[in-house]
């Protein structure tokens, strides 16, 4: 297996140019229009709106201004699949369509997925959705086809400010930690890494440098694996079955039959 690869996204240098979105769509041949509906969202400069089956990169525009708009800042973040080390989508996929590659990334095999949508509800980040053209669940592949021939993913290659950086996870973590240190020394005390350590789903192979709480960026503060509920939910279901079974046996066992027979007469 090759060394784990991924993205480190430094949100402080993103300028919202959306070159990553365009490069992603171009390389992966994703439709540029949303089913022909070219409407404006009215939400800042964000007309992509969310990650889904035909938007595998999404630049978020978060406006933080005072009421009189004299002071404020933009938070910009290019969002993508997190390629989690413990991936919720891969865990629940009933067809085996979602696999882990030799680069430790998570890929949906388009010839195996049947569009059951279990992965959509399992992903804690809301990354996956159905591609209306193919009828199957799709998301970022971390350009698996490019990686296989030693090329860099299209989005990081196109990023003009190196907000999106591609490399081995170890190397990226080193770079990211230095950048956090630099920012904090420069006075930006809010800088921290989201998803870089193993505490979050075993580590996110696409992790972020943020300067505000995760939920401000639309990221869950405490993402969890869906199977956390498997055991308790199964146990309670078994308890329900036992209770109903006991109620049934208690009511159907043959006792006082003649008396009830009379009672049942219309």
């Amino acid at each position, binding site marked *: 297996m090759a060394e784990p690869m991924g993205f480190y996204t430094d949100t402080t240098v993103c300028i919202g140019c959306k070159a990553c979105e365009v490069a992603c769509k171009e390389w992966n041949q994703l439709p540029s229009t949303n089913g022909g509906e070219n409407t404006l969202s009215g939400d800042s400069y964000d007309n992509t709106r*969310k990650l889904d089956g035909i938007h595998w990169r999404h630049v978020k525009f978060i406006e933080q201004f005072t009421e009189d708009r004299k002071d404020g800042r933009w938070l910009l973040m290019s969002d993508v699949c997190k390629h989690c080390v413990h991936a919720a989508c891969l*865990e*629940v*996929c*009933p*067809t*085996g369509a979602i696999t882990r590659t030799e680069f430790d990334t998570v890929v949906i095999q388009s*010839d*195996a*997925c*049947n*569009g*059951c*949508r*279990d992965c*959509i*509800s*399992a*992903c*804690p*980040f*809301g*990354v996956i*959705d*159905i591609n209306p053209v*193919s*009828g*199957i669940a799709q998301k970022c592949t971390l350009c698996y086809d490019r990686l296989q021939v030693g090329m860099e993913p299209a989005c990081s290659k196109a990023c003009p400010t190196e907000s999106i950086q591609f490399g081995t996870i170890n190397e990226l973590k080193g770079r990211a930690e230095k950048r956090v240190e630099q920012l904090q020394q420069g006075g930006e005390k809010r800088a921290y890494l989201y998803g870089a350590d193993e505490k979050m789903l075993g580590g996110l192979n696409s992790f972020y440098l943020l300067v505000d*709480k995760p*939920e401000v960026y*639309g990221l*869950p503060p405490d*993402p969890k694996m*869906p*199977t956390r*509920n*498997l055991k308790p*939910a*199964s*146990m*309670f*279901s078994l*308890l*329900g*079955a036992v*209770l*109903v*079974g006991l*109620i*049934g046996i208690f*009511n*159907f066992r*043959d006792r006082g*039959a003649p008396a*009830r*027979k009379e*009672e*049942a*007469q*219309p």
Partner: protein
Amino acid sequence: MNGVPSSTFFSAPPDWGWLIALYFFFGGLAGGCYFLASLIDLFGRSEDRPLSHLGYYIAFPCIAIGGLLLTVDLGRPERFWHMLIESNTYRPMFKYWSPMSIGSWAVMIFGIFAFVSFLGALADSERIPWAAWRKVHPPSLLGRCIAVIGGIFGFYVAGYTGVLLAVTNRPIWSDTPLLGMLFIVSAASTSAALMILLAKKSRWTMPGILDLHRMDAWVIALEFIVLIALMISLGPVFRAWLSAWGLLLLIGVIGVGMLVPLALSWRTQWLGDWNMKTTAVLILLGGFLLRLVIVFSAQGV
């Protein structure tokens, strides 16, 4: 958490709509009716045998409809078999930790049991002239074994759907471990109601109908307790039900589908001859609305 009560609020809805809500309802009826039929066969009286036949007559069509609904709901229905066979290697596809994977196998296996018992019930009641099929129906040893195993799979099919919803990251669904239990109890209550309704329609008078009616009151009481426990277990996420769906849950499911049937079971003289039928209709309506609320409310968050 910026006004968000749980990390589950950052996931995306899977757009499981009417087809899935209907599957949950029909799957519950299929599993529940089979379970009740096998219970009557194993513990009931011989004069109640038509009731057990009725359970098997309902179970097979319901699971067949359920399987069809599931297939049609897929983005690529022609690939439904990928749930059972790995499409690249042609090996069996089975993940014991994925409720949808186990559920697909359970639906198929239960479907086979439901079909066999359906034919067995037809043969036992002499509606088809295949005497050999009587052997797959109790009281034969083979028939008892089929009833027990089929009943277990039936209850599994009725309940795994709730576990499947819990094993996601959606608000409400994954914020409580009690959905599977609620669906199992609700499957039993709606199945008993449907069997009572059809038996009454045929003007049957066997004592098992009263047994079913009495059992249904106990099960509805249990269902009410489980639903309240579920609401409490949601904690701060409960506020997601402060919506039209929550109102439907309160009025349609709890009021019309549980409290009124409980009151009617307690005061049998209120509606006279219509008491049992009305109770059954309300329980069925409540069970259907419960699935609608659970499926749709978590996706509208």
